[in-house]
């Protein structure tokens, strides 16, 4: 049973050491900016050139409440690792690339267009979305299809809350998420891969409605760093990480299973469902075990749990389904 008692202190009230270090570096950056007279015209540009690393980490604190859906009993992965070990291929294929390259992602102003089979198609400004529901602290395990894992304190609210606002028609059977794509900002995605952009992901309607599916705005109590999918992303903790689309600009309600990026790229390796499942191997590696990020190499290996340990909440979505066929 994973629904535990809510922690006494929401994670947003704890300043992790790594975040504290980040504040220091931001202060350093401000000092540097002042030194070169950055208050003057073009200071922003200069600061960006001088310190892209800091810029990529610039974030604001979020007001949060605790949630009964948070995962307990796990040691959190450090802020440093969560923000410097990313798969975000628009910004390069190496794990360290997004932290280096995502500084140019224009996260303000930002809007999310909701369209397709809904009674009320509309465009939400990011600030409207942030205020739609109280933001909750939700610690989730994160299991990448590449067989590594983290434990991340996300901030957001159940995606079902947004769905209710949009009133999907009964003909809507799936939800599609489309990520930001601009070749000028994200040329690495075009240079280093043959992927057809923008990034697309999708869920079946009942999966999208499950309260665990989190519309996510932050981590460690602050707004998302760009490399983690700022300013808004989806997090589906019982599925492999690539299902959780980053930097979402469009949400489409559709009747048929949407085309999704990795499924199109290699259908035999990445199924549409992609539920975490230790019994169904990836063609190129076993999914029985995983490597926990941030531990020494001789302590990393651990068993992978069915539905990433969230079976109590989600197994019923798949009763009667052959999960070997629908991997």
């Amino acid at each position, binding site marked *: 049973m994973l629904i535990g008692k809510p922690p006494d202190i929401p994670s947003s009230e704890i300043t992790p050491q790594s975040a504290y270090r980040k504040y220091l570096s931001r202060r350093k950056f401000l000092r540097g900016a002042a030194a070169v007279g950055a208050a003057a015209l073009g200071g922003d540009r200069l600061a960006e050139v001088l310190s892209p690393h800091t810029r990529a980490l610039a974030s604001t604190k979020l007001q949060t409440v605790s949630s009964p859906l948070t995962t307990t009993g796990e040691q959190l992965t450090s802020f440093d690792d969560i923000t410097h070990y990313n798969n975000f291929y628009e910004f390069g294929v190496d794990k360290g690339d997004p932290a280096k390259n995502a500084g140019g992602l224009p996260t303000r102003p930002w809007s999310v267009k909701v369209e397709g089979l809904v009674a009320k198609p509309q465009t939400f400004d990011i600030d409207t979305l942030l205020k739609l529901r109280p933001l909750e602290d939700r610690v989730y395990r994160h299991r990448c299809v590449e067989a590594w894992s983290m434990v991340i304190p996300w901030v957001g609210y159940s995606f079902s809350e947004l769905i209710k606002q949009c009133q999907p028609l009964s003909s809507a059977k799936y939800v599609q998420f489309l990520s930001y794509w601009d070749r000028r900002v994200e040329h690495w995605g075009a240079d280093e891969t043959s992927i057809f952009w923008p990034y697309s992901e999708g869920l079946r309607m009942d999966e999208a409605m499950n309260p665990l599916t989190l519309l996510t705005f932050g981590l460690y109590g602050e707004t998302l760093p760009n490399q983690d999918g700022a300013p808004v992303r989806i997090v589906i903790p019982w599925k492999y990480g690539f299902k959780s689309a980053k930097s979402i600009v469009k949400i489409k309600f559709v009747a048929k299973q949407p085309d999704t990026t990795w499924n199109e790229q290699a259908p035999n*390796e990445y199924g549409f469902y992609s539920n975490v499942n230790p019994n169904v191997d990836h063609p190129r590696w*076993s999914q029985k075990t995983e490597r926990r990020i941030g531990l020494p*190499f001789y302590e990393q290996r651990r068993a992978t749990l069915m539905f990433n340990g969230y079976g109590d909440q989600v197994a019923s979505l798949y009763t009667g389904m052959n999960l070997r066929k629908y991997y």
Partner: protein
Amino acid sequence: MNRRTLILLKTLTWLACLAPLAWLVWGAITNNLGADQTETITFATGRTTLRLLLISLAITPLRRLSPRLSWLIKFRRLLGLFAFFYATLHLMTWVGLYTNFDPNAMAADILKRRYVTAGMAAWLLLFPLALTSTNWSIRKMGGKNWNRLHRLVYFAAIAGVIHYWWQVKSGVLTPMGVTLILAALLLARPILSWRQRRKTRGPVLSPSAP
């Protein structure tokens, strides 16, 4: 090349070849191997193997470009053996950190996953070359046979590059660099032979009508 320069260059080569390992050991001691230490170790040893294989394969074509580079041959065995050394470390990473020394898991991996199969094949192709790397072996086998056996290195390098392509996600183009370099090094051999043959034959006189 005099003896002192040779000793100096060999020492530098040793140091350069040991640097990737030193970097890993230092990283392990200072807990500085990145977020995913297993992956860091795997990629560092794998990448170094491919690089050293490519450098050792560059020696023959470079020597044939100019007789003044013939001394390069003195470094080929060293580079080749270091390539095998890192290939073995890479293999041990898989054995220890991925399969947890479980023979069943290893067998399953080799049979089921083609990138493991290709990697294993590459190591098995390098193994006899490392065994027969001594002067004694060359004498015992005779230069011709020894040369023939050591042509396996081409197949080892090709298997290594295929292993890399099959390991990365489809759509990821990072193995392209080593692939192009290997292709150039393999193509350079017949091209240089052809050029040499033309030279030794001398200028072709005006061809008569057939």
